[in-house]
């Protein structure tokens, strides 16, 4: 299969997957709960209010039509109106989305190089004392819940040392220094957890490659270990590593949900949790779709990059 053919097929799969995801999100938010208007207003709402909201939300239409109308709106940038605040969902989300993207971006920029360096360091001395200690530490860290790390961070840096605020205030247009202070603890927590996972997988990918015969050949020739890793092992590891990184950036979603709660960080996850609590279904629906779509797109990008990095695949295109 040629490279362009591969990318085209992947794109097709992406579109189908995104459609499936949008159907699932719609089912979850508008069909599963039963009468959304009744659920949103609670059991003490008057029948008139429920009927009014039902008409306002267009709930009297059949579900399939409502789905198509919602999808058409989303594609044109109209995400509907919040039941609780009566504001357009798009306005509520825009600033939150930027904040969450910033948190995820800063985390990725710090965590990925750190984790790769750590993973390579462990792989070079696989079986040695440094590697043994780091392996256990990294395994333990990657199995630790984000909320423990976040709680310890608050306890130590905010309450004990009083260096940083417990709560991340972030107002639009604030200077870089206050932004950095607001980001420090949430991003730090995420970096710790994510880089542990990436480092662990990087180590296993590279140690695996190091057991191949061509590496043995290079060793027998007397090539120094760091050159073997840099020239022979790393090049072949790029594909799998890109996949691991993308997978972990996607796993970041769960960490973001927890961290935004602990630090009251004004991001998209916090907006979604509040919306779930107040049963503001249009907002839940929009946030869920954004999170799921970015997850899906990221995994696909990794697939394509991994394929581009594999010379055997590029060569077949001729």
């Amino acid at each position, binding site marked *: 299969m040629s490279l362009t053919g591969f990318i085209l097929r992947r794109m097709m799969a992406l579109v189908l*997957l995104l459609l*499936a*995801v949008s159907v*699932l*999100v719609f089912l*979850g*938010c508008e069909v*599963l*709960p039963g009468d959304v208007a009744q659920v949103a207003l609670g059991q003490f709402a008057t029948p008139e209010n429920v009927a009014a909201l039902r008409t306002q939300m267009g709930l009297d239409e059949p579900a399939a039509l409502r789905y198509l109308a919602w999808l058409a709106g989303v594609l044109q940038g109209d995400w509907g109106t919040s039941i609780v605040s009566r504001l357009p969902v798009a306005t509520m989300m825009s600033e939150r989305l930027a904040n969450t993207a910033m948190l995820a971006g800063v985390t990725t920029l710090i965590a990925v190089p750190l984790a790769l360096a750590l993973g390579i360091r462990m*792989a070079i001395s*696989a*079986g040695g004392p440094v590697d043994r200690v780091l392996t*256990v530490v990294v*395994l*333990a860290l*990657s*199995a*630790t*819940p*984000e*909320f*423990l790390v976040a*709680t*310890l961070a*608050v*306890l130590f840096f905010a*309450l004990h040392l009083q260096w940083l605020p417990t709560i991340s205030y972030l107002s639009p247009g604030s200077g870089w220094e206050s932004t950095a202070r607001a980001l420090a603890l949430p991003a730090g927590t995420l970096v710790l957890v994510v880089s542990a996972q990436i480092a662990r997988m990087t180590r*296993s990918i590279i*140690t*695996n490659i*190091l*057991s191949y015969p061509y*590496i*043995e050949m290079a*060793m*027998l020739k007397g090539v120094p270990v760091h050159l073997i890793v840099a020239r022979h092992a790393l090049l072949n590891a790029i594909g799998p590593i890109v996949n691991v990184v993308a997978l972990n950036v*996607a*796993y970041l*979603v*769960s960490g973001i*949900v*927890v961290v935004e*709660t*602990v630090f009251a960080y004004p991001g998209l996850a916090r907006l*979604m*949790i509040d*919306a*779930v*609590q107040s*049963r503001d*279904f249009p907002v*839940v629906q929009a*946030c*869920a779709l954004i*999170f*799921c779509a970015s*997850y*899906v797109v990221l*995994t696909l990008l990794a697939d394509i990059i991994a394929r581009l990095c594999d010379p055997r695949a590029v060569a077949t295109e001729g």
Partner: protein
Amino acid sequence: MTTPLTRAPAGRSRPGRPITFLISAGILSAMLAMVVVSFFWTPHDPTDFLTDDAFAPPAPGLWLGSDSLGRDVLSRLIDGARVTLTMAFAATALAHLIGASLGLIAAARGGAVDMVLSRIADVVLSLPKIIVGLVVVAALGPSIWVIVGMAAAVYSAGVFRIARALGADLAKLDFVEVAQSRGEGLGWIIFGEMLPHVLRPLAADFAIRTSFAILFMSSLSFVGLGVQPPLADWGGMAHDGLEGLSTNPFAALAPAIAVALVSVCLNLLVDSTERRMKW
């Protein structure tokens, strides 16, 4: 053909470390003992308001201090073990029941059944679990059954993929083909011929997946959308304790550390057993 000059293959260079194995097995047994004990005894009633002080620091008789309503943190920790661990175990067991049977059926039958099941698993696996959890809780409310059922459904896709891959390797082997040509039914082929060969890898997956389920459900409770009062699991306790971090940090830390201990020990246990078996 390992020569002394080359490094030994990854992770197989030394026998499994019995110390890690013993420590993690010991801690996990202690946690299980805590679940059993919690049915009969806790130092105080976990729902009693013992003092008027919210987040009182530890004192004799109140070894981990009090929580936001003046209840004993230690008693609630012991009681929470039952809720947390039972729910995670139930969800994982259900996920394995569904995922492993469907995975082996897909591997043995192939064709359209395999295609449809695999595509469904692909879609489920392409969704971030915590977001699925939030949507389902928004739609159906945070009851125990909803949470356990949702976690089981989400995790069964991962089990399915592993069981299908293991089964697909087996289906090509002679003994399965012989059974097929003998005219054995699908049920016998799956449970009599294939299942015994996949039990060991599935057991390792079970342990790791239980740790995922614990982390997942605790995170859901931690953001306030898991088990609701009066029931309390560790994630929910850790959330309630956040407000009182400056006066009694144990109200938040103790349950959070408990979650971490169980999850880390499950991972270390599997890691050390697998290493030993490869050796």
